[in-house]
């Protein structure tokens, strides 16, 4: 068994200017890994900004953007193995895309077609959780079931700083610790729960400190440094896979845009604060590092931009298509065997859809 991983001091491997920070605990990921992460972050940023644009065009009802949190998004999904599970929230669309889910299926929810547009069983991606922290317990259940079945499945459970105030966050950490469930609790501390700042969520020295009360090792990591995130999350996944139980990871990041397009962030934070964080953009930092080390050249940069363009075009095309809805599907999935009452209600709707049968 490895020593507890707890580190409350911020883990950082690449600084805001792209320089390498020495660490006696974590190794800098290989250049090829960092280049792959960079590509994913370029694509992820484009997914965020394309989705926001589609809201302005009326194609999506709403989009909670993770603009500025792309390092967290990409790392959370990229460290998982094929059989592992991801439990995302509504702000984790980029992590879901990184996991391989078709963004057109993913955005069916925000387009208003159905509550979850993809089949969670295909790529082991749970539906995006809208209630806060409830999904963390489901993650513990998937992990505990895996243990009982002697499988080495690991579960990556995402939530934000606001969700750490919920009772289910506490219950999930506690259950995971007691059952040594193979779960990585990955908190993206982006400093705001809609408008409410972190100071109103918690008086703890850090959210990572919450781990000690549960007996869960915790790590505090720079959430805009994908190198550090990769190293920390890789270690947490490996621990879980070895049967050594859960880890709590707090990523220090920032929600650079409003909660959603319906929100007005100028009402609760200053532009100076936002500008300070813009200087710590996760893409800028990694680009500087990869360029200065000769890993990223203009050709690769152009290739990634073209990939992002292509995906954005696919998202636009997919979401500009009008979906054909079958209103009778509303009754189709509630009970596997249906029910006499739902059958009668479906018949009523079917008659309404058929329109008047007699000339009046």
């Amino acid at each position, binding site marked *: 068994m490895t020593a507890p991983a707890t580190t409350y001091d911020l883990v950082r491997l690449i600084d805001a200017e792209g320089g390498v920070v020495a660490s006696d605990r974590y190794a800098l990921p290989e250049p090829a890994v960092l280049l792959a992460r960079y590509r994913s972050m370029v694509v992820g940023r484009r997914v965020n900004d394309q989705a926001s644009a589609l809201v302005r065009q009326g194609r999506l009802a709403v989009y909670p953007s993770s603009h500025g949190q792309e390092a967290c998004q990409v790392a959370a999904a990229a460290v998982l193995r094929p059989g592992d*599970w991801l439990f995302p929230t509504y702000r984790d669309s980029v992590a879901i895309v990184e996991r391989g889910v078709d963004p057109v299926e993913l955005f069916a929810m925000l387009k208003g077609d*159905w*509550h*979850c547009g993809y*089949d*969670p*069983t295909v790529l082991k991606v*749970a*539906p995006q959780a809208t*209630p806060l922290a*409830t999904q*963390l*317990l*489901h*993650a*513990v*259940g*998937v*992990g*505990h*079931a*895996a243990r*009982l*079945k002697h499988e080495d*499945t690991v579960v990556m459970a995402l939530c934000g700083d606001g969700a750490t105030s919920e*009772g*289910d966050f506490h*219950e*999930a950490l*506690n*259950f995971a610790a*007691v059952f040594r469930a193979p779960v990585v609790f990955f908190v993206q501390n982006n400093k705001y729960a809609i408008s409410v700042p972190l100071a109103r969520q918690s008086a703890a020295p850090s959210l990572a400190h919450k781990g000690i009360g549960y007996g869960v090792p915790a790590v505090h990591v720079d959430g805009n440094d994908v190198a550090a995130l990769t190293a920390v999350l890789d270690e947490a996944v490996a621990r879980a896979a070895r049967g050594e139980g859960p880890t709590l990871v707090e990523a220090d990041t920032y929600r650079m845009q409003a909660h959603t397009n319906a929100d007005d962030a100028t009402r609760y934070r200053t532009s100076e604060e936002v500008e300070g964080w813009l200087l710590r953009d996760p893409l800028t930092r990694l680009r500087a590092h990869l360029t200065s080390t000769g890993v990223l050249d203009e050709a690769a940069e152009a290739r990634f931009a073209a990939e992002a363009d292509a995906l954005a075009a696919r998202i636009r095309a997919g979401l500009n298509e009008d979906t054909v809805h079958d209103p009778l*599907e509303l009754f*189709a*999935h*509630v*009970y*596997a065997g249906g*029910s*006499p*009452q739902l059958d009668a209600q479906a018949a009523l709707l079917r008659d309404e859809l058929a329109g008047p049968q007699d000339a009046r």
Partner: protein
Amino acid sequence: MTGLTMAQAINTALRDAMTADETVVVFGEDVGPLGGVFRVTDGLTAQFGEDRCFDTPLAESGIVGMAIGMAMNGLRPVVEMQFDAFAYPAFEQIASHLAKSANRTRGAVRLPVVVRVPYAGGIGGVEHHCDSSEGYYAHTPGLTVLAPATAADAYGLLRQAIALPDPVVFLEPKKLYFAKEDVDLAAPVLPIGRAVVRREGTDATLIAYGPSVPVALAAAEQAATEGRSLGVVDLRSIVPFDDETVAAAVRSTGRAVVVAEAQGFASVASEVVARLTEQCFHSLEAPIRRVTGFDIPYPPPKLERHHLPSVDRILDTVDELQWEHA
């Protein structure tokens, strides 16, 4: 089996389900070595090991939330909510996730979870130990809600509930846990969704479920000595609801009283009355009446007998079914 209690019948159902299907797991508070506060899970940990029947931390949302995840990963959890009113912390997990997952995912993630709830009153329990919470669950689409009234049904319905691909709230009437009954566990049991006529009657129909069924049967017995023939229908399955059986019974008599322990306002009993009024209006000789608990928080033990439907209150209500028009 002679002299089997409902608690033993449920225990046997769990044991048989766990034997038949190794994906069935049982967990909750005190269900392990203790065997549950009502001893319903007695001996399961000893027989099947700690991986199959285990105690959890004391947190109901956690229990149901973890069950959801375990069901997502191929297991069939049967969880116990120690007492009815202690299940409320789990309500968000039940209403927002357990009940909705199949619909949310277009059938891709069905959750075969059974939430067992020792429920209702009549046991002299202190506050928070005697709620009739069926209305909350029955009002939540996606849940199947069952309330057995006999040991045989408790066994048969629980076996069916565990086999179902969808979530079930299984309401176990605490006051019937230790009532003894001769049961043939191998005998076929009516499926989920079917009510049963427990007693034929020609003058009026009593409709009850769970703990109110024996009270309704006692009222019918008493009425018979007074020259009135009351039928008794046991719903067994609150959701899905057996309109056909219940409406047929009421049409045959033209008079009905719905009996339930839960407070009557916006209740399952109200729903039964509304459905029957829509379906049987032209057969009715009198408005359908309800005998339910009062619209008050559950009373302290020394006052609960005034709150619960009694034989006398049922018969008084039957007397008011406009017999002058008969």
